[in-house]
């Protein structure tokens, strides 16, 4: 711990300056007009903090240079090469690496002699949060990129979950270890077992959580990586780590709360319960659904051509079909035809916070056309056509009409109130929540079955003819 005590006054002053830049950076990141500058500002803050730390080093310079060069290269390559549709898993992966770094920092500190009891506690907490963040993010990465198909109910998942619960008493034990070892012979390899256990526990933490709940998990893991960094800052007595880490922790927490609210569920319910165990009482009413009315792309075109206002409601299905570019093209053709086009974006549509916004931005849709549920719902009656593209639960009227439904109370985009609703869907399967969607059977609903990209391409080519 010697190197910390020598941190000069200059370093601390620069750390304060860099903390201020981080604060302004993250504030500006929250507004459309200033977001780009905010990101630059926080990058400058990072550069300053890292640069000034290099004035006073305890590590071999070769290790530092090779580590930063190699890490910078890998990170930059991933960031430049990644497709915009793969952003959710990318963010999860980077986040996991941040968690792993704090995990290793705490491990290294454990090896240094003369840790006080308080430092010992901080080491264990940092290892725990960092390890959970790392392993949990890897699982999130696997699930989002669809490499990992294990879910709730598999025996492997169940074993991993029990390790997750085992990790709580284990954390308590390792924290108290300095006291316990006074009475019983010291169990010298306990720390290594704990290191392994936190990683397995991290797997068990995220493994049972399903795809539709991923926006919550990603924001929460994001928050954890910040908190881990803040604890590492306490451990190393470094104020910039504390400030920057706490800011990340807070922003992740806010996003987590926004996401949970958008589903009308508590964070605990999302993490530990899931949809499966909520009541299945809604089955009684799902029998008298009525008839599904399919429509062809040609007929859909004729209706769209005469519509004066169209609301597009995208969901994860649009991301899967990679339909965002044709959707934009259709939107432009509609506008050229004198139709007012808006996009209704539900906060939890997709697999991460703001997923639909990123996809539509990639396709060059102006962001002032994107509206939130509260903005579009009041005027829904006057919308001629609501076009639901690969969304399901976020437009499910059960959430407002059917009290027994597992998703009852979730704020939705009330597409069913529009004069006509087109639902673009591959098949009649239910959404992530496993709840049947009465929207498909409504009088004013027309189902346009098939791949969303192909269906919309057809409509687009009709417009062009």
């Amino acid at each position, binding site marked *: 711990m010697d*190197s*910390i005590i020598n941190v000069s006054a200059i370093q601390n002053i620069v750390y304060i300056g860099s903390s201020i830049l981080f604060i302004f*950076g*993250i504030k500006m*990141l*929250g507004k*459309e007009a200033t*977001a*780009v500058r905010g*990101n630059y500002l*926080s990058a400058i803050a*990072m550069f300053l903090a*890292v640069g000034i*730390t290099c004035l006073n080093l*305890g*590590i*071999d310079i070769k*290790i530092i240079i090779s*580590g*930063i060069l190699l*890490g*910078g290269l*890998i*990170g*930059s390559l991933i*960031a*430049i090469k990644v497709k915009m549709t793969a*952003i959710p898993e990318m*963010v999860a992966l*980077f986040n996991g*690496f*941040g968690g792993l*770094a*704090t995990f*290793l*920092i705490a491990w*290294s500190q454990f*090896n*240094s002699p003369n840790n006080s009891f308080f430092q010992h506690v901080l080491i264990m907490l940092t290892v725990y949060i960092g390890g959970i963040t790392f392993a949990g993010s890897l699982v999130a990465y696997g699930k989002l990129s669809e490499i990992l198909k294990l879910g709730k109910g598999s025996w492997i998942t169940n074993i991993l979950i029990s390790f997750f619960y085992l990790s709580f008493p284990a954390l308590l034990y390792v924290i108290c270890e300095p006291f316990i070892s006074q009475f019983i012979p010291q169990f010298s390899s306990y720390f290594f077992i704990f290191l392994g256990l936190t990683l397995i526990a991290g797997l068990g933490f995220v493994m049972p959580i399903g795809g539709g709940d991923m926006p919550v998990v990603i924001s929460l893991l*994001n928050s954890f990586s910040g908190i*881990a960094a803040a604890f*590492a800052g*306490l451990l*190393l007595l470094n*104020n*910039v780590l*504390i400030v920057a*880490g*706490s800011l*990340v922790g*807070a922003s992740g927490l806010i*996003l987590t709360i926004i996401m949970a609210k958008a589903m009308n569920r508590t964070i605990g319910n999302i993490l530990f319960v899931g949809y499966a165990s909520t009541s299945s009482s809604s089955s009684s009413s799902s029998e008298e659904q009525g008839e599904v009315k399919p429509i062809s792309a040609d007929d859909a075109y004729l209706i769209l051509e005469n519509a004066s206002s169209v609301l597009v409601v995208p969901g994860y299905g649009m991301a899967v079909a990679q339909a965002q570019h044709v959707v934009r093209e259709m939107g432009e053709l509609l506008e050229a035809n004198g139709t007012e086009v808006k996009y209704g974006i539900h*906060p939890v549509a997709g697999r991460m916070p*703001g997923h639909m916004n*990123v996809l539509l931005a*990639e396709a*060059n849709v102006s*962001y*002032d056309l*994107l509206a939130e549920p509260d903005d579009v719902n009041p005027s829904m009656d006057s919308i001629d056509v609501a076009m639901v593209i690969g969304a399901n639960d976020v437009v499910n009227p059960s959430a407002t009409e059917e009290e027994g439904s597992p998703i009852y109370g979730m704020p939705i985009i009330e597409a069913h109130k529009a004069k006509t609703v087109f639902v673009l869907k591959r098949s009649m399967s239910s959404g992530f929540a496993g709840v049947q969607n009465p929207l498909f059977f409504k009088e004013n609903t027309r189902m346009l079955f098939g791949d969303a990209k192909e269906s919309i391409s057809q409509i687009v080519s009709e417009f062009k003819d």
Partner: protein
Amino acid sequence: MEIYVLLGFVLLLSIFLGLELISKVPSTLHTPLMSGANAISGIALVGALMLSSEDQTQSILAFGAILFASINVFGGYLVTNRMLSMFKKK
């Protein structure tokens, strides 16, 4: 011990500040904010640089921490910037 109380105070104030700063974010910016915050969590790099490399184990741990934190920092900022440059008002 006093230093921990002091730094704990900094920790709490920063969390409250963070909650205040970002309490109203338009949903357009949810992803960039998350990704930008993720890049900031790469500040662990500063912590990694403060480690020591007195023996082989410590060197490997330090190298690993620097490597992974650097991936987080560079990747995080670049991806955020790429994303933000797509958000345009026409």
